[in-house]
Structure formats: C-alpha cells, structure tokens
C-alpha cells in the first residue's frame, strides 16, 4: 500500500491555524493552510491513506466522502510542495 512520509523539516504554528514548514535542505519556508496543517500533523504518526483519513475523521464532523477528498487534496498539495514523499 502507498505510504506518505514527511520529509525532515522544522515548523511553527501561525495565527489562523496556519503552519510554516521549512525543509532542512531548503531556505524558503512553505505556509500550509486549510486542511494541509491537519494532514501534515497527522502524518507524524500514521502514513497510510486509510489511517490518515480515519484520524482526520475523528477530528472533524464532515461526511467520510468530504474528509477523504480533503485529505487527498491536502496530500497532493504537500507532495507538490516537496514536504511529503509518496512511497509505493
């Protein structure tokens, strides 16, 4: 099963439930907003998509479909930002 792994990075919470993340090999931090900070945080403990969705669903009250779509969108954003590596 595909797993999603965070790259080594430092981070700080910002006002408005945003998170600033800086990869250890980069110089410019990336700001996470919306559902990305939650997924980023969840990835510290779990790495497979069903687990990620399950943990996020325990936090929010949206329908499973909405949660799953939000998680997948956040994962795509984190992968595009080179903060998460997708491992088959």
């Amino acid at each position: 099963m595909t797993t999603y792994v965070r790259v080594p990075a430092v981070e700080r919470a910002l006002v408005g439930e945003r998170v600033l993340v800086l990869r250890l090999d980069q110089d410019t931090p990336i700001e996470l907003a919306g559902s990305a900070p939650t997924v980023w945080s969840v990835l510290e403990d779990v790495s497979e998509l069903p687990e990620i969705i399950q943990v996020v669903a325990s936090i929010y009250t949206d329908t499973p479909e909405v949660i799953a779509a939000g998680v997948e969108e956040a994962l795509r954003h984190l992968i595009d930002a080179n903060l998460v590596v997708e491992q088959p």
Partner: protein
Amino acid sequence: MTVLGALARMDVDSSELPELRDIEINDAVDGALLALLIQHRLIGLAARAIETGELNVSNETAEAIVDRHDMDMAATLRIEVMMLRVAELLETESIRLRVLKGSALAHTVATTPSDRSFRDVDVLVRSSDIDQTVAVLEAAGASRLQPELRPGFDRRFAKSVTMRLADVEIDVHRTLAPGPFGLTIFPDDLFLLAGTFAVAGRTLPTLDRTDHLLHACYHAALGSQTPAMTNLRDIALLAAGDVDLDRINDAVERWEGQAVMGRAVELVRESLGDVLPPALCLYTLSSEDRSSLAPYLRDGDRFPALAGASLRALPASSRAAYALAVGLPVGTNPVDRVKVLSRRYKNL
C-alpha cells in the same frame, strides 16, 4: 507600558496582577505597540493573545502583529535549521555541546515554540574545545566576525566567538557572560547535567532547567542596560518550574554571581511584578553589588570598563596575557587599535 508586562506574564502565575484582557488599550498605546513588541521580542505572545481574544487592539495593529509574527517565524526556522547543522557538525567531531537560549527555550520553556523568536544560533562548548569548534565551523564555510585577539585568547578569556554561515549568526560560547562575571563562572559546571529537546526528529542537548535559569539571569542582568522583556519572561517561566534552588545558590556562590542574581531579580520585579518564588527574591543588590555591575551598565562603549574590571577579576598569573591580548591584539597597529577593540568588546 502595562500591556507589555501583562503580555510577558502570560502563563506565569500572577493572580494578584492585572491580566492582559483587563487592560484597556487606548489609541496612543495601540499606535506605539508594534514597535515596542518588536523591541521587547514579544510579537509571538501578542499574536497568540490576539488569536485567543486576550489582546484587544485595532484591526490595523492586529494585522501588523500577525504579519510580523509570520516574518519572525520564517527567520526563526532558518536559524533552527542552521542550529541542527551546527549540532551535527560538532557531534560528528565528538565535540560536546549545549544549545543555549532561543531554540532551546522555545522548545522546552515557552508554552508553544511560536511564542518565542530568536536571532542567532547559540551553543556552549567546553573551553578546551572552542578552538576545534571554530575550526570545524570554518571548514564548513563559516567565518568569524573578528579574529582572535591573540593565540589562546578564546580558550582562556573570551565569552564567545561570533561566526556567520549562510547569513546566520552563530555564537560559540565558552562561558555565559562577558567581562568579570563571565570569567568567574566555571563553565564546565554546565556540562555536569543536561536537558534535551527534539527538533525535526533529532534530539539535541541543552542545559538542564536549573542551569537555564542561571543563564537567563546572567543574560538579562549583564547583556544590556534595558533587557528585552522576553528575557525577563524566560526567567519567570523557568523559575516557575522545577528548578533546584539549592544548586542555584551553590553555583552563585561558587561563581561569585550574587550581584548578577540581585540585578536579574530586580529587573523581573520592576517589569513583571512579583512573579518569582520567594527564595529567589532573597537575592537583592547591595551598594557593593551595584558597583561591581557598573561596567556592564555604562552608556555607549562599555569595552574599556569591562576590560579593566576583567583584568582585576583574573588571577595574577593570567593578567599579563589578558592585558597583552586586549591592549595589543595581533595584526593591529596602534592607530587602529582603539577601533578594533571597540568592535571586539562583545567577545570579552
């Protein structure tokens, strides 16, 4: 300004003192607040207080504080990455270190790391390791801001060697303070116990909480005439936790730091109110203490006064070497000497 004291007291037990949410902020205070928060490095606390509704400022000021916090955190992260790199470089060479101040306090003492920004990397190494530490960092591309005054000066007398790598300042400390009070510290005491904190999955060594409190007091008392409120808050937060007051008393006696502690306690009480444990408040300042602090509290260039006081604090056997290094640094001619020494006062 009352609001600054209340901000700096956040999360510290101070039930007798005004709370932030009860303080009225008029237009004049609102207009001046951002600059003062920057000066006292309380932006992180103010941003959190805006979010929780404890700090009621105008929308314009709130936006400016949040923007500034975003900027501070971006800079802080870059410094934290450099701290990880420095720690890795030193540990690869088996050089023992303790991360000091900013990042360590943000992760171990602050309520949330985002409360506390910092401007440089501070590490403490043993005096016997400072030359190798500088060499390791130079090999990695760092450059020191000032050359060593004379061979052996860093190891014997300097407070720290300030270096720069990729636009980040790195302070390699040998002791906790400049001048005579730095020279009477036994820096190896600070390697007897250790604390740790984790960043990006790595565990880093730092001072244990009691030693952090001693350092915070030395930094606030001797660093400048008017220390930033964040430094006084560090003292209040550290003192509110589990610290070994007997060990503090022993260290202060051994390091001859009574005046330092007296001034630190006085500064905290003046700015934050009665937030310290009664046992710490036993440290007060005598007139003799105030005299011994005078070289640190001068206006303008404090180098000559600190150098003179350092010379008097040293054992007779070290005075000639110190005087020669300070009075006639390698590579300077008498015409340039005064300018060079003024820039170097920080490393005394």
